[in-house]
């Protein structure tokens, strides 16, 4: 989240789209209720289903699954045509005036630079026009025909209310009503927040759906303000933390990135990531990349990371492609992987196309499952009849199952979606011989290191030299690890502004990432977490819930990254003169000599307004990007593409172009293309989701949730039920090209048939929570049905839009 849960209370309008907070984040959703009750906020919900969030909405509009870009593209057109956007914000705080290269183009669904063989773009033609001064050319009048605002006007001209109706199935009056609610916040003094979750990420164009929402928020001037922002509600309790810590195939801690094969030259690797300002006087905070990177390498390899060996650059692996989970199971199914470790992760249930996942696991030599619970993955080899029909004797994978502690039996920090690192304490011992995750990993690593010391082997250097400064080496404590990712001084750090002054003595914990150096004199395992455990102690364990400004910022509760800031980009909450856009905002204001307020200012503290330092300090532009010159796989502006399995025959926004029916830059493996269905056999749009009583595949192991929602079901609209002769409570078989499930039908008026350009589209809702392990009634893994294709940028699977058929069982 750019903002945070409590801050929702400051909103005037709440848009929930691509999520269902009332169901999936109930205690966070209470702040929507608070905004409605005490801030006269209006809640707008756009969803294929009339959800629990919709039940509390002031206005609900239906939408066909997977068409959110068409809908929000229509909103962008509405705002630009009507002029109901925050013009001063757009002019000063976005790249609306930046002039795009003359080579940029867009033709019937495809942007310039496309290579159909590689299914990828060369983004060179999307770049800004550069001036003779070395900076990007900007037209502050926003009238240059190639400035971003004008490019956007042309791009979204096709996204009319009639087009929205045909593509999304949303009636024009409903669409325009939503536009009016949103546009009401395009003035200083009124703010909207957008709350979204996996309903936006789990599409083949999910990242661009989120960007479309962000563009709407920028046009309305709602980013950086209390009650505003783009708020990813996220999933697991520490999914934010593991993302921050970079546990992803292409990442390093703190959003640093691994090098590619072609980046053999360390200086070039660093230079590419050290973003130089594109406009005069801008912060471009990624200019500090070398400090963050060198401090990470010092934390991991200590004295072995030297200036001479480029801070152990070659100790890190290099990428020849993205090794996301879909790529991993593709390799596995080809027999190219031997080992796999699942730590608190149940891929047989969580990944698409269960049959492919199961076949992949069966090709492994060994599988290691580290979990508090007996998961489906750990027993993928065992026959559970119709729910898991396999023959153990034919599966040669050796499976180890290691019991670990659960939350109640360990201490440490979790980062919630508000970016708060909250410390928790151990309440009891784990059952039996279960061990903590850190102890298990340390046990494996200690053995590996000993084997390499004894026997030698392939490139033992990074294993031999890895720092291990923990007081109890076999079981590193949470305190030791938290101190390490925060970071410390490796030498006395003199103040660069005053050589006689020491900022920190050698060995002391660092107070903030502003203290990090690129000369090897600091170590920090995750630069954005620097400040979590300072010389003053554990900041994550703070429990002062005081809210002196009554705006919900509670700066003394836990610790938020970065530098305890609660609202990102809060420098944009003030006008260019340094005065808050709204008299209700206290986040930050210029007091004549410094920025100060109820939050930690997101600005250089002494950057006076007349210096025109843009509030988006992480971008090279200093402003937010409506148009992205690079970094998005499928284009600089969001464009609607159909899901890979769609119930309609044509993409009406680029008619007649087979290349742009679905995301032209998404990766689809050949074997999986053959496992996609066509509307003739699979006419119904399907979408998977969670229920409030359950959490993924865990709560079926717990009695009360298993009693609250004991039996697998699917939801279908009454129109489809009547057509198919399916009674409420009847058993139905739902199948896709990849497999089938059998479940009870819940016939409901909360899912209505939609008319999309003459095609009647029925949705089938598929809750995900059942499986063949646990205390709830056994059921089918819902991901038996889902397709093996992901978002073009993140490869997050398209769980939210695919097609099925249905019959009485």
């Amino acid at each position, binding site marked *: 989240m750019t903002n945070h*849960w409590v801050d929702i209370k400051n909103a005037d309008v709440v848009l929930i789209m691509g999520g269902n907070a009332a169901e*999936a984040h109930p*205690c*966070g959703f209470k*702040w929507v209720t608070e905004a409605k009750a005490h801030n006269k906020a209006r809640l707008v919900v756009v969803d294929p289903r009339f959800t629990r969030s919709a039940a509390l909405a002031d206005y609900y509009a239906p939408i066909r699954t997977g068409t959110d870009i068409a809908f929000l593209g229509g909103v962008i057109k509405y705002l630009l045509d009507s002029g109901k956007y925050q013009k001063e914000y757009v002019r000063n705080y976005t790249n609306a005036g930046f002039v795009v290269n003359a080579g940029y183009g867009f033709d019937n669904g495809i942007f310039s630079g496309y290579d159909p063989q590689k299914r990828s773009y060369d983004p060179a033609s999307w770049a800004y026009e550069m001036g003779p001064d070395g900076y990007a050319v900007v037209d502050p009048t926003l009238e240059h025909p190639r400035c971003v605002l004008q490019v956007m006007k042309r791009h979204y001209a096709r996204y009319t209310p009639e087009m929205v109706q045909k593509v999304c199935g949303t009636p024009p009056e409903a669409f325009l009503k939503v536009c009016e609610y949103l546009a009401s916040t395009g003035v200083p003094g009124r703010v909207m927040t957008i709350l979204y979750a996996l309903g936006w990420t789990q599409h083949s164009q999910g990242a661009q759906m989120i960007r479309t929402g962000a563009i709407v928020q920028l046009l309305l001037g709602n980013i950086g303000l209390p009650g505003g922002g783009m708020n990813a509600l996220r*999933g*697991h309790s520490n999914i934010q933390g593991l993302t921050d810590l970079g*546990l*992803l*195939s292409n990442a390093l*801690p703190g959003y640093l990135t*691994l090098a590619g094969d072609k980046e053999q030259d360390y200086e070039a690797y660093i230079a590419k990531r050290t973003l130089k300002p594109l406009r005069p006087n801008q912060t471009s905070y990624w200019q500090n990349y070398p400090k963050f990177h060198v401090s990470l390498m010092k934390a991991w390899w200590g004295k072995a990371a030297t200036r001479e060996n480029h801070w152990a650059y070659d100790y*890190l*692996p290099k*990428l020849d492609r993205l090794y*996301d989970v879909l790529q991993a199971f593709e390799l596995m199914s080809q027999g*190219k*992987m031997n*080992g*796999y*470790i699942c730590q608190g*992760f149940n*891929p047989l249930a*969580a990944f698409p196309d269960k049959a492919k996942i199961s076949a992949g696991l069966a090709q492994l*030599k060994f599988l*290691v499952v580290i*979990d*508090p619970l007996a998961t489906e993955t750990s027993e993928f080899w065992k*026959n559970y009849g119709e729910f898991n029909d396999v023959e153990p004797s034919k599966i*040669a994978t*050796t499976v*180890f*199952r290691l019991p*670990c502690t*659960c939350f*109640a039996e360990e*201490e*440490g920090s*979790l*980062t919630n*979606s508000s970016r708060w690192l909250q410390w928790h304490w151990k309440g*009891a011992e784990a059952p039996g*011989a*279960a061990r903590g*995750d*850190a102890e298990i*990993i340390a*046990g*494996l690593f200690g053995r*590996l290191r000993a*084997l390499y010391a004894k*026997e030698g082997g392939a*490139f033992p250097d*990074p294993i031999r030299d890895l720092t291990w400064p923990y007081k109890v080496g076999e079981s590193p404590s*949470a305190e030791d*690890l938290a101190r390490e*990712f925060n970071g410390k001084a490796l030498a006395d750090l003199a103040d660069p502004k005053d050589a006689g002054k020491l900022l920190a003595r050698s060995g002391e914990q660092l107070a903030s990432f502003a203290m990090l150096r690129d000369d090897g004199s600091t170590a920090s395992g995750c630069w954005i977490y620097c400040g979590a455990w300072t010389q003053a102690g554990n900041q994550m364990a703070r429990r002062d819930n005081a809210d002196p400004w009554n705006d919900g910022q509670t700066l003394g509760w836990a610790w938020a990254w970065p530098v305890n800031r609660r609202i990102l980009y809060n420098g944009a909450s003030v006008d260019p003169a340094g005065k808050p856009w709204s008299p209700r905002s206290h986040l930050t204001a210029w007091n004549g000599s410094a920025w100060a307020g109820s939050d930690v200012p997101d600005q250089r503290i002494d950057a006076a307004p007349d210096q025109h330092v843009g509030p988006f300090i992480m971008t090279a532009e200093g402003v937010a990007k409506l148009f992205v010159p690079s970094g998005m796989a499928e284009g600089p502006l969001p464009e609607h593409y159909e899901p890979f399995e769609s119930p309609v025959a044509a993409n009406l926004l680029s008619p007649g172009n087979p290349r742009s029916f679905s995301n032209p830059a998404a990766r689809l493996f050949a074997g999986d293309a053959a496992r996609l269905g066509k509307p003739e056999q699979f006419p119904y749009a399907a979408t998977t989701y969670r229920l409030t009583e*359950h*959490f993924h595949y865990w709560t079926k192991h717990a*009695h009360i949730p298993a009693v609250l929602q004991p039996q697998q079901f699917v939801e279908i609209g009454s129109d489809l039920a009547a057509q198919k002769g399916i009674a409420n409570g009847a058993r139905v078989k739902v199948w896709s090209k990849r497999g089938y499930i059998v479940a009870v039908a819940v016939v409901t008026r909360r899912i209505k048939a939609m008319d999309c350009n003459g095609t009647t589209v029925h949705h089938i809702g598929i809750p995900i929570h059942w499986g063949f392990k646990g205390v709830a009634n056994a059921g089918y893994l819902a991901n038996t049905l889902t397709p093996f294709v992901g978002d073009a940028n993140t490869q997050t699977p398209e769980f939210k839009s695919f097609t099925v058929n249905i019959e009485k069982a």
Partner: protein
Amino acid sequence: MDMDRRQFFKACTGGLAGSSLALLGFSPEAVLAETRNFKLTHATETRNTCTYCSVGCGIIMYGLGDKAKNAASAIIHIEGDPDHPVNRGTLCPKGAALLDLVHSQSRLKYPQVREAGADTWTTISWDEALDRIARLMKDDRDRHFVARNGEGATVNRWLSTGMLAASASSNESGYLTHKVMRSLGMLIFDNQARV
């Protein structure tokens, strides 16, 4: 008589119930009405965070045992933390039932192995489990580690073994997991954020 509530309950459970209650000046009805608090009065409170979704609700766990070295602890009740700025003491249906997850009959207790082709689990020791896994990992890494790609460029990666990390584990566990796995050259490495 100077007696706090805790001492009062002690007196009652110590066999002084019945007629002596009247001597103490209390009515037995009040004691019967207090049974829930009675249990928690003896419990040790521990602050924690709900393990389910990313709202990060504060919880208070009530445990038997005072955390003394020889006192076995057990969580007996979990409820919302009223001091927490987000949930203010409330929990959702699954959060309110967290205790059932802690004590689930599906909790794993001992390391186990399922040998190739077998249809049952065998319980093994931690040493045997970790020794065997480390051996398998090292042999695989030594055999398949790619120091240089086809063009002779240094790449130092290990692609034949991968890992999924747990996004319900702590930052500290996650950090250590990342540090260790990347030192092995592992690239097939993701957490739930990928899905």
